[in-house]
């Protein structure tokens, strides 16, 4: 079943895919290390989010963040973006599950990139001996000591998850920036490759 990227559904699907893949379990048997993937919102994201289904996906991811962590967005570009949509990140005032995404999607058309420059979604993936133990949305400042960090714009991540380009191509070409223990990464390229293949195999709407 095709899912929206980014969305909670996509996260669930990825978790399921990785943890049920025998080949990944084998090639990543010795892998120990978490990834923090930072997806910076670009003009393509702002355009995509004018589609209610895609915006709903984005909001469904935000909704997975425990309310007590919402304060981490205070004063940041993400808060500005939500504010442009009329969403106040106050647990007492908003229920992300009950928003009218059709209305919000219309408002997205009025959001300019320079107003929300720097807004991003952080996905934290905890890989451990052939398993993806945890996959969650990290708030700003959280999981900063992840073993690897993968940073890039939404449009590039979209190519990656949509199977249009593989991670190695995007990293080698400088479209995605990878930081961390590169020696360890190179010794475990088979695991990295298999994971990105699995990620790209999820049909995207």
């Amino acid at each position, binding site marked *: 079943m095709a899912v929206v990227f980014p969305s909670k559904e996509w996260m669930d699907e990825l978790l399921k895919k990785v943890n049920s893949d025998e080949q990944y379990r084998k090639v990543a048997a010795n892998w120990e290390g978490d990834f923090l993937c930072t997806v910076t919102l670009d003009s393509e994201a702002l355009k995509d989010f004018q589609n209610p289904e895609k915006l709903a996906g984005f909001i469904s991811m935000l909704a997975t963040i425990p309310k007590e962590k919402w304060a981490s967005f205070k004063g940041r570009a993400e808060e500005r973006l939500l504010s442009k949509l009329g969403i106040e990140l106050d647990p007492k005032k908003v229920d992300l599950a009950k928003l009218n995404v059709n209305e919000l999607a219309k408002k997205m058309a009025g959001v300019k990139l320079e107003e929300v420059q720097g807004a991003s979604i952080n996905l934290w993936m905890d890989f451990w001996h052939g398993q993806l133990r945890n996959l969650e949305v990290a708030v700003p400042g959280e999981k900063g000591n992840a073993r690897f960090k993968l940073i890039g714009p939404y449009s590039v991540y979209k190519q990656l998850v949509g199977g249009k380009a593989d991670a190695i191509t995007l990293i080698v070409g*400088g*479209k995605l920036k990878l930081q961390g223990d590169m*020696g360890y990464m190179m010794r475990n*390229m088979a695991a990295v*490759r298999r994971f990105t293949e699995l990620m790209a195999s999820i049909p995207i709407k």
Partner: protein
Amino acid sequence: MNFLDLEELSEEEKLLKNEVHRFAQEVVRPASIELDRMPAEDRIKPDSPFFKVMKQMKKLGYHKIMVPPQKGGIAMTPLQRCIIFEELGWGSLGFATALGVDMIPFTAAALFGGDQVYQDLVVPWLERDDYHGCWGVTEPEHGSDYLIAIREEKETVERMGRGNVLAEKDGDEWVITGQKSAWVSSAPVATHCGLHAQVKGEKSIVNGLFCIVPLNSKGVRKGKPAEMLGMRDDPQGELFFDCVRIPEHYVIVAPGFFYGVFCDQLLCLTSCGVGAFSVGLARAAFEEALKYARERIQGGVPLVKHKNIKLKLYEMFEKVETARTYVRKATEYTHRKILELGTNDASPRHARAAQIYAKKIAFEVANDALQIFGAYGLSKEFIIEKFFRDARALQIEDGTVEVLSLEAGEDVIENYEKDYYDVGHINRWLET
């Protein structure tokens, strides 16, 4: 000349070998002899045999054999690729090299480039016969420096000085300025160059990128084709870049850690290819010598009846066989890591050994073959003098044997005990 292949080739492999050998014998070799005797300027004219043979090679699809099938290439095993390379090397070192350098920019783009560059450049190269690549590495002040810099001490590399070709980002384009030296194989006949350039403002050639420059771009100029001792069947010449602008997606490998990995791994691929070409050249020289020694009467008996000739021929045979076996083994490992698994963690020291060993024995075998021919070996009447000149050129082409050995030696000393590809040498560069 038929021979026993210890690999015990399958019917399919035998068929492939026979087909490529026939092409090498009937088309490649005669054209290579013709080119070898032509002045450099004539070799690059549109009606030159060079273009006729390259077009035929493309028709047969030989240029596609390193590209994965899902990217429009031809499905091949490492052994099958080795067979093709050896047979072409047997026919002509120059044409084999021309095919090898043709592959570099486009295969690199197919493996590591994005969809846009694939559509712009790789698709036409796969489908047409008038795209021809070259590999712009060597520079007037940096002969083989690019090949060794990444494993060298920082002070040594800094002494090498600034690269002769610089790339500078300007908006969504890169601007290329500088010069590659006269030894760029196929440069005079190429339409595109897979170019290594130092990033402007960076400390050394290690801080570089790999891009594709269409050679019809504004600001590109080609030098006169060089008159060389050997490998004259693949024209060589300079490339000049005067503020040449390329779009960002023509940069296949961006500056940074992966540029180091790319250089290391690309040299693994080229080393295996040159290794197989060298085996082909060595075999060609050996077979000519064997044939001649069986027929030529000296001292009242055929040369093969003389003990010194028997010993020589055995030694030549031994060298060809050991080189072929090792080159195939190193190729199997290297191609699996880079082309099949895509993990890009082939072993530099093992791949370099394939190139270095095969190059060395190619020269030794060609030298011994010429000696067996006596004065006839020095005359243009027999092809052996061409093999000798080509084998001599091999000791310098694609990295001198000395530089390649030094580079591989560094890897042996630092990483011999490790059963994985260690990137400590690249990390050291990023830290400095």
